[in-house]
């Protein structure tokens, strides 16, 4: 018994040693303390899941929870460079690592996932452990493991094998160490001396490949990209362009486009969006999940499949619905499948006389930017300004009296427009509300859960308004105004650039952003083409993150 406990304790020590030993190894040319460091970005939950699926297959379950992402400058991807891992988060990563590793080494899976068989399943086998760990490690670390790293993980596997008497248990424990290491959990922009610019550094080839793959595919580099990095092909303009063109043409681009637009439109917030079920009985967690997917499918269809004009997202009538969403939108959608089956996705085009046009009329916009029990023209207008047009709306001053705005059963001010007009009698409030409310009020036909209505408290809703002096009468015309507004174009360029760089766009990026914006507009606002232009630019591969200068505005506005 004591012997067994000693064995277990030894295995634990060996496991801990592996984690400690796998701290990032800085190259000789790394900047010294105090200089701007190349950023590390924590994997998002989706990226983590994508990698596990691509390395081990889609049957592997993660079995854990992720720490929340942090949105910085409107993007989680920018925030991913500013977050760490808490002790609770680490415990979750460890739990997931062990869960995944157990499945990989399970007798039912090992012949598929482990490329070799040990001489004895009860004893250590250096060669087989090395083969598996170096091959898997190359994918998980997005670069070849160093000899030292391989040695550590093989030794850890051997120690665990010796104490447990099972090769696969040893391998599983070692693999879980790999999956818990910062090299896996963080995307590291490793740098090297730049031979063309003395005293300067540049991203090494694997960091370039990683940056490309996460930007375009929201996942790790594939084999071809890793090989291209190993051969140095990404150093040449031609080699880089060839790889980017291949990646843009790949079906995996959908994952990248999904990730970007989910981030830009803040669709992850739908997961925690709650509504008063008495007021909005059709809204529930399933509908919220469907709403996110509806918008993403609409975007993918227009942006990737049709190679359409990005701005058409604000006036397209074509979308994708489930039966539950269709009932919220009050349209017929027949499900020709056996009873009890999950809802299916179907392409759907709203009729020309239907008030629903464009993303702004999706539940993912009108519902997300509303309160739990009422609409909010202000939140909707603010979201339009900040998310779609990249314009800043000042925060409300302290101690504002919102009593009239919140009183949806006010007998005098019966519509949101009436209540907001009354609220704006306070001149302190009026300034900002002028920026947001005229657009938000155009969406008042959609209640807080996104359902269509023509009246509020028995009074006909007036949806007329104006966006920067362009007048409109309803949501469809607002969509057209957004389509025409130059900020709509420049904003998506800004956001996509910041998303790729992992930091906010700063003043010194102005020229680059200006060029990208012009080309994007000239070529028909095609998003994959914009991604291609960003991914082949030198700015995209800058080795050093430049923090935004205080007071700088986002370029292009």
């Amino acid at each position, binding site marked *: 018994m004591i012997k067994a406990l000693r064995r277990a304790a030894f295995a634990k020590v060996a496991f801990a040693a592996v984690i400690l030993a796998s701290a990032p190894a800085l190259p000789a040319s790394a900047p010294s303390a105090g200089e701007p460091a190349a950023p590390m970005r924590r994997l998002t939950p989706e990226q983590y899941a994508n990698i596990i699926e691509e390395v081990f297959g889609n049957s592997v379950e993660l079995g854990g929870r992720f720490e929340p992402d942090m949105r910085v400058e409107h993007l989680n991807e920018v925030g991913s460079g500013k977050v760490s891992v808490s002790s609770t988060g680490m415990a979750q990563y460890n739990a997931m690592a062990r869960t995944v590793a157990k499945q990989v080494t399970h007798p039912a899976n090992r012949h598929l996932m482990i490329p070799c068989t040990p001489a004895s399943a009860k004893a250590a086998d250096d060669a087989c452990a090395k083969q598996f760990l170096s091959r898997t490690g190359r994918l998980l670390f997005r670069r070849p493991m160093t000899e030292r790293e391989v040695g550590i993980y093989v030794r850890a596997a051997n120690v665990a094998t010796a104490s447990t008497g099972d090769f696969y248990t040893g391998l599983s424990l070692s693999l879980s160490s790999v999956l818990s290491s910062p090299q896996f959990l963080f995307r590291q922009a490793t740098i090297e001396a730049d031979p063309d610019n003395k005293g300067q550094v540049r991203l090494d080839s694997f960091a370039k490949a990683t940056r490309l793959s996460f930007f375009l595919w929201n996942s790790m580099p594939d084999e071809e990209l890793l090989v291209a990095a190993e051969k140095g092909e990404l150093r040449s303009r031609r080699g880089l362009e060839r790889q980017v063109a291949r990646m843009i043409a790949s079906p995996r681009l959908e994952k990248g486009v999904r990730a970007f637009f989910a981030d830009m439109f803040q669709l992850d917030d739908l997961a925690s969006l709650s509504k008063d079920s008495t007021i909005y*009985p059709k809204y*529930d967690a399933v509908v919220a999940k469907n709403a996110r997917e509806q918008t993403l499918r609409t975007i993918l269809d227009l942006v990737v499949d049709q190679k359409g004009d990005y701005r058409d997202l604000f006036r397209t009538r074509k979308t994708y619905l489930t039966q539950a969403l269709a009932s919220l939108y009050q*349209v017929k959608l027949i499900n020709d499948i056996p009873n009890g089956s999950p809802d299916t996705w179907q392409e759907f085009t709203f009729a020309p006389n239907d008030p629903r046009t464009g993303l702004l009329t999706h539940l993912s916009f009108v519902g997300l930017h509303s309160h739990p029990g009422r609409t909010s023209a202000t939140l909707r207008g603010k979201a339009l300004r900040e998310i779609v047009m990249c314009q800043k709306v000042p925060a409300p001053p302290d101690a504002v009296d919102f009593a009239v705005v919140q009183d949806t059963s006010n007998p005098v001010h019966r519509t949101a427009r009436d209540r907001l007009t009354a609220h704006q009698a306070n001149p302190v409030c009026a300034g900002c509300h002028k920026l947001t409310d005229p657009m938000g009020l155009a969406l008042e036909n959609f209640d807080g859960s996104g359902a269509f209505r023509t009246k509020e408290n028995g009074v006909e809703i007036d949806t007329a308004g104006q966006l920067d002096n362009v007048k409109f009468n309803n949501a469809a015309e607002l969509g057209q105004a957004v389509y025409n507004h130059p900020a709509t174009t420049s904003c998506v360029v800004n956001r996509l650039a910041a998303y790729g760089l992992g930091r906010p766009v700063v003043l010194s990026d102005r020229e680059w952003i200006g060029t990208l914006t012009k080309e994007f507009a000239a070529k028909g606002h095609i998003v994959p083409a914009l991604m291609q232009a960003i991914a082949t630019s030198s700015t995209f591969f800058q080795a050093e993150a430049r923090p935004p200068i205080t007071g700088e505005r986002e370029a292009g506005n």
Partner: protein
Amino acid sequence: MVRKSPITSVRALLALAPLLLAWVSTSASAEETRHFVMSKFWHAANNAADDCPGGVNPKYPELVPINLANLGYSAREIAALLERDAASEGGDWENDELTQILFYRARINGKPANAYMHPLAVKDPGLKAWGGKMAYGFDLDGKGETPTSFTDPEAGVKGVKHELARVYGCNDQFRARLRDGSAAGLFFWMAIKDAAPAWTISITGENLDKGGPVTIKISRAMEPIRYNGNGTARADMSYRADPDPRTANNVYAGEVKDGLISITRPGPLFMIQEPLLFPLFTMHQFNARMKMNASGVLEVLIGGYQPIDEIYHFCGSANMEAEKNFCAEPPGIYHLLVRHADYDRDPATGRNRAISSTYYLEAVPAFLEPTIPVGGASAGGTQ
């Protein structure tokens, strides 16, 4: 007089065909149809406190000694049986002495028989009937007010025939206010709602908001009703119409007047419901009255003469479980049904086989995809 040959007539009709088609399509386009799916269903009760003089009928524990006495057991034997039953662990009903006696308390040619399958072979325990004066429903026989008829408490209709209210009214499991539903009604509805394909109500007319003649169709969807996260029925869901031709004839002439939608020409109803508890739901002289409430829910009363065996199936098929939990004393209920049946006299026995009854249901707006009935598009028509 020159008679046109059949061929000439056909030619004339063919020549007129485009005009006829145009007229038909114009007529069709002027009409609108609104569909609803049933979201609640139970018998229409209108009970109030103390409306059963002397109290309601005894419940299962009190009925056990009565039923045993009816079987000839002495007071001492009954006490001993109950004592043994209390001491037993229960659960194994096939070997449970008391359960076996009660289950087989019917007597056919002096031999024990299943009481639930042969309720008339059980001595009538003498459950009392309800004697209220206000009950929901319709003047089904058109005879107006009679000494035994009711007055509808909301519509004010006189001469209402709803004998089922008398059968159920003094049994706790069936007592309720209209919109609350009784314990039995709720049990039944909760049991079938997620499994049985939803009933549909389709109302067609030229101006459903203003009023005028309408056509009312009662049918079924292929899917059960869907619910919101908070348990309420989900409005505006899409369903496919059931192509079963047996429901195709449930089409009735009606009218919209003062916001009330009603059938003006009653006829037979044939519906298929949930296989276990209510496999068939048929009515003679089917009638309906409905209105939209403030929440956008259609509140519907349906009534007609319903075969008592179809009603009893709900209690009889669940046998002892029904007796213990939700159906009062099933053989006693059957005796009441027989006593109060008021339609469809069986010439062989001289007994009525159907009873006037009213049910309350709610329905929410829905989309309904038409399907061609099995057997062809021509199946069905207005009553």
